[in-house]
């Protein structure tokens, strides 16, 4: 399994055809206390860069973009009652949704962990 990152601070874990998407720990630290996560419907399809989800903090609503194109197969139901999971474990139990990848070749446009760390260090 490999993890990729976007410049908009999403991550995606890819295993075969399936990817798990979330926001990075850096992103959650910037947003502050997360109060609500609006998740896509299972079965919805998105292209790379489409808005698939919205993460609310008290005074901001942040769009979450699809790292690569795909179809949503599952959402993290636990976030409905506990959006704070994203703060506590953004890159673990605070995942947002799972997708079936439309085209694994799109992953080539994303960063690996080393590149993302360097990118964040520059911000």
């Amino acid at each position, binding site marked *: 399994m490999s993890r990729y990152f976007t410049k908009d601070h999403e991550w995606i874990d890819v295993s075969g055809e399936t990817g798990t998407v979330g926001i990075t720990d850096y992103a959650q630290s910037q947003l502050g206390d997360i109060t609500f996560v609006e998740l896509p419907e299972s079965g919805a399809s998105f292209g790379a860069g489409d808005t698939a989800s919205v993460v609310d*903090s008290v005074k901001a*609503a942040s769009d979450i973009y699809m790292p690569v194109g795909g179809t949503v197969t599952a959402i993290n139901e636990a976030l409905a009652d506990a959006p704070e999971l994203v703060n506590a474990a953004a890159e673990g139990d605070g995942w947002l949704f799972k997708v079936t990848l439309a085209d694994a070749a799109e992953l080539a446009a994303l960063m690996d962990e080393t590149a993302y760390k360097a990118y964040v260090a520059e911000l």
Partner: protein
Amino acid sequence: MRYLPLTADDRSAMLATIGADAVDDLFADVPADCLLPGPVPGLPGHASEMAVERHMTALAARNLSAGSAPFFLGAGAYRHHVPSTVDHLIQRGEFLTAYTPYQPEIAQGTLQVLFEFQTQVARLLGTEIANASMYDGSTACWEAIAMAARITRRRKAVLSGGLHPHYAATVRTMARFTGDVIDARVPVLEAAADDAAVIAAIDGETSCVVVQYPDLLGRIPDLAAIAEAAHAAKALLIAVVTEPVALGLLEAPGHLGADIVVGEGQALGVGLQFGGPYLGLFGCAEKHVRQMPGRLCGETVDAEGKRGFVLTLSTREQHIRREKATSNICTNSGLCALAFSIHMTLLGGAGLERMALLSHDAARRTAAALARVPGVSLLNHAFFNEFTVVLPADAREAVRALADKGVLGGVSLGRLHPGEAGLANGLLVTATELTTDEDIAALAGALTEVLA
């Protein structure tokens, strides 16, 4: 000038601090040819308090106020008795001259009132939650349709013919620009509301059905049946209440299956005011809260653990989400919400029911008296405090002739639905607890003369 505290000496001293020679130096960014050299031409100068009072009092004197004549108008604006306590309290400077409660530590008065108001409105409408108010009933009605479109992802609204035509016109105006489809109908002079036609119009594209309760003609639609039909098609039922006092007697729309209930709250606490400012009520199920328009007040705790209130879920709103907001509403009807809430607190549920029953009694007596006027027939089988009579002649003319006799006798359907020949003889008549037997006799007598 009595509202300007700076003296000439103050102004000189302040200009010196600023380092400017004259106040017009501060307007240096205005192009010289656009900066007026003196007062705007064509307008009078300042006036004393006495002079202004004289001018405004003379204007007011040219109106026939409702309290000085037998009065039977309704059609979306109702005259009930407002206890003097209400107007006294809303003029407390701490309420009147406060802003939207953005700094909750020093706005708990307004915020607690809003929390109490939201609870009162939800219980009255029979919904789980309610917001902190909208501009008025008609704009709340459009906001509800827009909200239903977001929830159902459909863009077609079915409007009952019993919906107030100003509300329907407001909806059509907005829909013309947003591309929503509005399937509206005009009322028919029949004893029953158009439930069957509304149900027949629901299809797989319908996002919502909008039904006024009681309807424009005073009839009571069967909300439960319409809700069932709407839900079968995965559409929402929006109930519109223009006379909230009716809910002291009639079952709450939220208890009959309405998904969103909007209303005009003016009848409680606010007064007639020639049409505004009024008070939009907005209630719905909790699961739809994030699609709801308008301000919301919520309970929380402060840093010492004390209960307090804040504006919340503001990520729905324009100042956060800008072009993605659920609505562009910013200012709402805060002071009118306060007036409504105080009046409701004075009434309680028992007082509201009593006021509703008194209004219903007065309307029944009025209807009975008008039904005895030669040529006049009563349309409704059932009504709360407003009903339709059919005259043997154009009701617009009759209303004017009644006014000439000093009687404000009702609202003609012809004014509300111009061009609908079938409605021209319809007259809407409303009574409340303020209506006296002398008023009723005066109306019946004057109408007899007018129609003779």
